[in-house]
């Protein structure tokens, strides 16, 4: 990536600088919503690139940091509306994670560059509106100041021979108390779940 840093165009208003946004879309709702925006020809600026994941809950904080480091001016995570997640409540986990990441990003002054939105498969118009809105917001913020400067902690891989564990953190991020509580609740709830109950823990 060394060559990249120097070559990035400087952020100056009026020189036609366009933000770069990476959108993680869950396969079942938001990706389909983006498809529908296309089918309906709802135009939005070419500032966003979509990366498909099966569920919004697959998005790790490290991915977001990685994207910001690599040059994203904004990162959007889009999933199904609460209650509609294809995997019951993956999006609730995503919400906890993304909010925690957002908190962590406050220190770096990057929190406004991260957004979490619920977009259903029928909300093509909403998808395009959100992209337009986010693009405008990022334009006001200007270029991501830490491009190529942060080093996210990617979990060690077996091959790297390190067994790095941080029981208190998800991939290098402090795990706030709220999250642990939520996990505990989940755990208790799931222990009580009957085999056929897919309503999940309410």
């Amino acid at each position, binding site marked *: 990536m060394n060559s990249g840093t120097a070559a990035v165009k400087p952020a100056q208003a009026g020189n036609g600088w366009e933000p770069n946004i990476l959108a993680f879309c869950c396969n079942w709702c938001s990706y389909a919503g983006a*498809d529908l925006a296309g089918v309906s020809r709802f135009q939005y600026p070419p500032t966003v690139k979509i990366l498909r994941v099966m569920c919004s809950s697959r998005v790790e904080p490290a991915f977001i940091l990685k994207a910001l480091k690599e040059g994203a001016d904004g990162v959007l995570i889009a999933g199904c509306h609460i209650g509609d997640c294809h995997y019951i409540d993956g999006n609730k986990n995503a919400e906890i994670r993304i909010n925690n990441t957002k908190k962590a990003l406050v220190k770096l002054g990057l929190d406004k560059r991260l957004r979490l939105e619920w977009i259903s498969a029928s909300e093509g118009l909403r998808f395009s509106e959100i992209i337009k809105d986010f693009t405008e917001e990022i334009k006001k913020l200007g270029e991501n100041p830490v491009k190529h400067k942060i080093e996210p902690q*990617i979990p060690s891989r077996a091959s790297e021979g390190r067994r790095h564990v941080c029981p208190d953190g998800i991939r290098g991020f402090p795990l706030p108390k709220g999250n642990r509580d939520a996990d505990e609740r989940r755990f208790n709830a799931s222990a009580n779940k009957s085999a056929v109950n897919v309503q999940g823990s309410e």
Partner: protein
Amino acid sequence: MFKEVSEMSDNKGTENKGTVEKDIEEKRVGVFVCECGVNIGGVVNTKAVADYIGTLHGVKVTSVNKFTCSDSGQADIQQKIKEHNLNRVVVAACSPKTHEPTFRACIEQMGLNQYFLEFVNIRDHCSWIHMWEKEKATEKAKDLVRMGVERSKLLEPLQASEVPVTDKALVIGAGVAGMQSALDLADMGFQVYLVEKEPSIGGRMARFDKVFPTNDCSICILGPKMVEVARNKNIKIMSYSEVKAVDGYVGNFNVKIEHKPRYLDVTKCTGCAKCSEVCPVEVPYDFNEGLGTRKAIFVPFPQAVPLRALIDKENCINCKACAKACASGAINYDMQTSYTDLNVGVIIGAVGFKTYDPEPRHDYGYGLYDNIITAMEFERLLNAAGPTGGHVVRPSDCKEPIRVGFVNCVGSRDKNTNIYCSGVCCMYTIKNAQLLKEKRPETDHTVMYIDIRTPFRAYEESYNRSRNLGVKFLRGRPVEVKEDPVTKNIKVRVEDTLAGEMRNLEFDLLVLATGIVPNEGIGQIQQLLKLSKAADGLLMEAHPKLKPVDTTIDGVYLAGCASGPKDIPYAVSQGSACAGRATILLKNKKAITEGITAVVEPDVCVGCQVCVPMCPFQAIKFDEKENKANVVKALCKGCGTCVAACPTGALEQSHFKNNQLLAQIKNVFKFQEVAA
């Protein structure tokens, strides 16, 4: 850049001992850019994209096709796989949601693992939404394809697994659509459970007097079908029941059914309705849209299937008069809710619809003035078995009206309520006006409409017939509706948009053609089965044209108005279509499921158990002895929730592995470097 990516793949190579040989094998990527006619080619410079991509490391060949999914397009892919000995294929075209299976099959035929396909969407996510920014769209397409190329190099082979299919079916909703599905499946020899929330099967159609376009008597054609359903050995009707929980996956759904108590033993009840005669409680009759009354113990309607009474506990005063009157001793006041657990291979959702309720908004004065009713109420008044024995009367004085007005598109085609067209209202208004005119030729009918839509066989003829009978059609929406305080007549001010003048009309009765809207069942099965809703709030099919009765969930199908407004013939066709689609699975007794699951690398797992409670499907079992987490493949649906939670990186989601996603992320923003 490329060095880093290839390093990552090498890492992975040493990690998975079993696939070392494959991994150190050189990655030979072929990229196929589709023009999709002019859909992509008209905006994105596909040649420029292909040329740029051709310069990327590992890309051995690029090709631009007018329609990559066509026979010749697929042949091109297969030929290039052979010529260039490709081991990864990137298709840059439309949406993987519709076309991934096509290309997976295409490369599989050439002996490549189907998961070696990477699909890049440069149509829905690029050309179609950047139609006026051709250059930027081309640059974006380059980025998207580059992301795909880098990811493709890291793809690993996976095996889609085969699961056995239980050869039983569940049909939810016993309207005309659900009944048709059940009958067809049963006739093919499969066991069907038909779950209906109401005490009788039949759905909406059982309430109509006659049905358009040919005006056959509704219950005369539906009744025999209902009896056929009841008689069929392979169908088990579960009326007055609802689905409470669904678990499992295609071929193996575990379903919990709740049976609401009828407070009488259905095996003893003969449906004689002697009990109703003695019951002292009278409440508005829901089957008649609240017109007329029924007792607290009642048989739903004379042709009900099953023909059994039930007690409406909310209104029962516990006088026990019915217990004394019942000759067969069927009454049981202490009956409890009971449950049945079913195991089925496929599920058909046919929960129907409800009509738009004009009461809360007082559309056109409904709810404020007595003599404004809905079409559903009109249907019941017309019906010989209805509250008035087939005499259409107006609510204020029970007199038979002479001047009847009909307002179309109530709750439809209106941005304040629903923007979509409910499809059947023009036709049922035409039918209703016709029926009353035939019954009482002295009546005078005016239909106020926006457009009259009569697209199917014999519809236009029915419209002509109404006009020939003297029904007047006035193009315009009422702008003002008032009640005459003395006569209770309804005064309507309406712009006749064809004549270009305002008209003041007076009616004895005004009928609102209320549209089709989602009912509670839609929300319920949407959540239970994890389906999507369309913009109209009704359930969404897998593909609006090519998979109209499938859903995105394997083994789940939709029929009837649950997936959009429909008339009866259309609903019945969909019922049969669902049965046909479901039979593919039921007969083959096996289904192919995606190979995407979570996988634990035991060497890395430290047994922290963070992942265990994360899984919504309880697919992670903890092995206390080994102190390791284990993913039960059959239960894992591959969401990746646990993967993102695992602090050590021991968990990976196949096909969405960290290195694969990171390769994409890394490659999103490269064009700046290139451009600058």
